[in-house]
């Protein structure tokens, strides 16, 4: 037995290593990027134990199971090498090996239990085999340790049992060690570890979150595309990603780490709405593209309306439409629910936007209304094609101070966003102005010089237009002095605050919920308590919550209004998107239902009379849901309604109070 193992284990390790080498080669097909090998390896364990488990622990069952199984396996494997290959045979070692095997076996039993009736989001196929392989290995190791530890007499093993044991351990080694390198479910361990070590967004991990590209952020800003180098005249390089080998190699590595747990699938609003997108399948398609082949072996939920086996790809071949249909990419709202949920820290949104960049910048294949919006952005600086000089028309009677007229500077620069062209959002803006005036906030607006932040262009893949708008806005802002920017549009909030730094614009940006919370904390607003018994629910906008971690400020404001805040089934970092982000409202890929209808359903289920929102896009999407349903009101409107009007500023208040339906 001992001899058998001393051969089997090294053999498995060598074959596994060869496979791993091949795997590394697959990853390195991607675009090069330098990494620090040693530093990455050193950082990996902590990232695994802290950051990854932080995500995994949201599902306690699988978290514990994974600790037992993976921990047991690593220990058993290490000990087995020491005992059987290096020949350090003693009772202690044997005992430890037995213990490791036992721990792993217990974990494995839980794995097996989950696999008895697996939830829909889990992939089947080879993954159904995994618990058996794990069991074979752990049982084998446990049994092998028994004679060594003297629990069973040394010679008790007959040829038959040796053979059985050998097969068990051999099977286990094949799946766990060889499979880790050569593919199969256990590939995730190797790829996952490497992915953690060399993640393209190191800021996502607690060890370096203070440094890097976006210090202190959740690293949700899209990475800039270097337009000049990638399209030098005569360059054959195309912009964005057309083929799997045009992803960065770290991205390919990331895709390879996917465990097909389907958490992203369960979180994805587009998938739930029956649109042809499933983030898990998308990541698997990327793996197929990287390695070459068809999706026939994919054993999870397909894209709605498509059957597996009809698509395939290769590293050097176009992804769209051979491997992935364009509708899949255009269904995404960039809500990041998938990224937030992914235990392997895979970056779905980056991948989707990279592929969209190619479709828009090289292929001219943005869906129709999206293309119209892009043309408008280029010609008029706003997606609606309005005369940009009319951005302040709605506020003619409010006499908003322009920053141009305040060379000495102001505290708050109010960034209007494109909601300024929308009658509904103008009510919100009016309310916000009323509240700021009531609190005596020193503010001004940019006015006609303000352009769209570029959010829509960027998510639709038009990096060129985004960068153009960003540069122009930064140039405009550089002329003025202000302490911070406040906006009631979370998209502007995110883009100005998180994505402009890459282009030299560094600002303190606040969402209006943050400002309102601050004003309330400082007791600068006199608010009348709400009628008792009135209840509302807060819809977390993706670009405020998941993108920027602001969950608390709006809730603090709502509580200050004295209303009962009921939480929807999906809220906070798991909030469900309204369906309006990432240009999805324009691309409007047909599904079985609408994301906004589902979200309104969530709100309705709470029984609240009002769904409070903090985003013009969410307002439009949720108000677009047919009645009946809770009333949709912006945070600013709710605060304005509750303001106690004192004599001297009543004049500015009358208007909005009439407009806000009681």
């Amino acid at each position: 037995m001992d001899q058998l193992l001393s051969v089997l284990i090294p053999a498995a390790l060598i074959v596994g290593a060869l496979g791993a080498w091949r795997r590394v080669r697959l990853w390195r097909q991607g675009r090069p990027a330098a990494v620090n090998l040693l530093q990455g390896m050193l950082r990996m364990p902590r990232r695994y134990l802290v950051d990854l488990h932080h995500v995994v622990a949201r599902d306690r069952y699988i978290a514990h199971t994974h600790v037992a199984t993976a921990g047991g396996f690593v220990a058993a494997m290490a000990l087995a090498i020491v005992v059987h290959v290096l020949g350090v045979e003693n009772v202690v070692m044997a005992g430890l090996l037995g213990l490791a095997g036992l721990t792993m076996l217990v974990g494995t039993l839980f794995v097996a239990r989950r696999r008895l009736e697996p939830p829909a989001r889990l992939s089947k196929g080879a993954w159904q085999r995994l618990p058996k392989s794990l069991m074979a290995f752990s049982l084998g190791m446990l049994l092998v340790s028994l004679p060594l530890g003297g629990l069973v007499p040394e010679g008790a093993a007959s040829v038959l049992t040796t053979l059985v044991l050998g097969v068990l351990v051999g099977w286990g080694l094949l799946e766990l060690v060889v499979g880790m390198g050569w593919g199969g479910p256990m590939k995730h361990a190797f790829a996952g570890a490497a992915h953690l070590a060399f993640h393209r967004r190191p800021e996502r991990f607690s060890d370096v979150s203070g440094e890097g590209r976006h210090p202190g952020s959740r690293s949700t800003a899209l990475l800039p595309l270097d337009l000049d180098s990638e399209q030098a005249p005569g360059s054959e390089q195309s912009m964005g990603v057309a083929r799997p080998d045009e992803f960065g190699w770290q991205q390919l590595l990331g895709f390879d780490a996917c465990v097909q747990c389907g958490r992203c699938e369960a979180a994805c609003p587009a998938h739930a709405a029956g649109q042809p997108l499933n983030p898990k399948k998308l990541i698997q398609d990327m793996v197929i593209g990287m390695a070459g082949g068809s999706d026939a072996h994919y054993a999870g939920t397909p894209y709605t309306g498509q059957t597996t086996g009809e698509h395939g790809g290769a590293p050097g071949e176009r992804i769209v439409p051979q491997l992935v249909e364009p509708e899949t990419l255009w269904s995404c709202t960039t809500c990041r629910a998938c990224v937030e949920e992914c235990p392997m820290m895979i970056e779905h949104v980056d991948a989707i936007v990279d592929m969209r960049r190619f479709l828009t910048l090289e292929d001219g294949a943005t869906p129709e209304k999206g293309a119209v919006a892009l043309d408008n952005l280029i010609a008029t600086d706003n997606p609606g094609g309005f005369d940009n000089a009319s951005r302040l028309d709605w506020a003619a009677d409010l006499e908003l101070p322009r920053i141009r007229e305040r060379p000495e500077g102001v505290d708050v620069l109010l960034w209007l966003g494109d909601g300024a062209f929308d009658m509904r959002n103008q009510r919100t803006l009016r309310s916000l102005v009323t509240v700021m005036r009531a609190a005596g906030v020193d503010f001004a607006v940019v006015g006609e010089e303000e352009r769209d932040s570029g959010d829509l262009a960027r998510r639709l893949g038009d990096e060129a237009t985004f960068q153009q708008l960003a540069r122009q806005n930064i140039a405009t802002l550089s002329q003025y002095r202000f302490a911070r920017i406040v906006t009631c549009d979370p998209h502007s909030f995110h883009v100005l605050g998180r994505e402009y730094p890459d282009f030299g614009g560094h600002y303190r940006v606040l969402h209006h919920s943050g400002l309102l919370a601050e004003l309330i904390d400082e007791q600068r607003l006199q608010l009348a308590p709400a009628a008792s018994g009135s209840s509302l629910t807060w819809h977390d906008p993706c670009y405020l919550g998941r993108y920027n971690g602001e969950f608390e400020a709006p809730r603090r404001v709502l509580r200050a209004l004295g209303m009962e805040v009921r939480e929807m089934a999906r809220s906070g970092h798991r909030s469900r998107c309204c369906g309006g982000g990432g240009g999805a409202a324009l691309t409007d890929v047909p599904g079985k239902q609408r994301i906004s209808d589902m979200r309104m359903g969530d709100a309705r289920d709470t029984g609240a009379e009002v769904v409070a929102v903090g985003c013009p896009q969410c307002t439009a999407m949720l108000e677009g849901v047919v009645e009946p349903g809770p009333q949709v009101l912006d945070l600013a409107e709710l605060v304005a309604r509750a303001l106690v009007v004192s004599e001297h500023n009543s004049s500015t208040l009358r208007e909005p109070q009439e407009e806000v339906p009681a």
Partner: protein
Amino acid sequence: MSSGIIVRRDPRAERIRRNRLHPRHHEFCQPAARWMGPNGVMRRNPHTVAAIGPNGLRRLDRSGATVTGGPSLRSVNDESHEQRRQVTLESPDFLVAVVPECPEGRLSSHDRDLFGLARQLADRDPASSGAVVAITFDHNAPELADAGADRWLALDDDSYAGYSPETRLTALETVARSWSPRHWLLPDGPAVGSDLGRRLAVRLAGLQPGSEEARAAARVWQVDGDHCICRGGGEHRDIHRPLPQVVLALAECAEPVSETRHEARPITLDTAPVPSIRRVTDHGRVAVDPSCIALDQAPFILAGGRGIGDWPGFHETARLLGAAEGASRVAVDDGYMPRARQVGATGTFVTAGCYIAVGISGAVQHLQGIEHCQRVVAINSDPGCDMVRRADLALIGNGDAILAAVAARLEARQHEEYRHDVA
């Protein structure tokens, strides 16, 4: 109906109408019901569809085609021509040539405006009187006397039929050589309407190179003395320039003649135009199913929303009205209408002259799509909804019932017309 100039019955035209195989059959049978106004907006001629027979009754042509007949009893001209002053001109000092487009074989309002402008130029100087010569390529062009023509050259040979720019151009060139009109006025409309004028402009300019007079003015919208104002490219500039020989004028360039009536005395050319080789061949019109006209080009739309309960009734009413069908997104989502029929921000932006919205509340996303509609009618049970606010006419009530009543009336009307004909 005393005028002898208005050709009420034209045996040749009637013959062609009955003969479906005649090469010009389509021209005589197309309803001259609609044409493009100055801003690309569809307009309709109220005098068509059913023709008025000699006894003053509506009649249906047995050929099955819609007949382009003489003026109806309610014609504007008939109402006013009793009061018009007859003008005759025996020996004019100069000529102003007008080549009306006569889309579908009759004067359009654009053509009438052009005659108005021609009169302005001809009558400008009391000391020297000009005659307005109408040149038509169709014997069937009536109403020239009321439009303001003193003379009428009808070139109605078959070689001018359909799209025949080369033969028409040679004919005009012959006119230019024979009579040297002081001015040429041709319509500058959207699409092909402006084609012949540009050809003539270029041809005449070639005859007198370098002359500023010869450089045609296009898109003229006002003439003042011997200067004119042209709308420049992109609609954002006006060009003030001396009035040249050839003037291509936009619709509403002048008021149509309404006070006087003229002779429209037929005249002929002494020298026949040299026939030219036709290098462009007209194969005739292509049948276009009204329901296949792209929504964004449809001139008249009946749109339904969530308030529609009776969809078959809706389709029937649309058919009877001759309207293209549109829908709100909810109607599309619910599967009652195909996605291509959705009007609005994420559907189609429409430009219909008339848009009827039934059971559509008027969400911003929907209203964005009808921003460029001229007239909007709302039929809705809720008088407070935004569509009612947007509408030029709002009918409050049950949409299904109102549409059913409309359908019943239109159907009855068709029956009536048929009975008239049989009687």
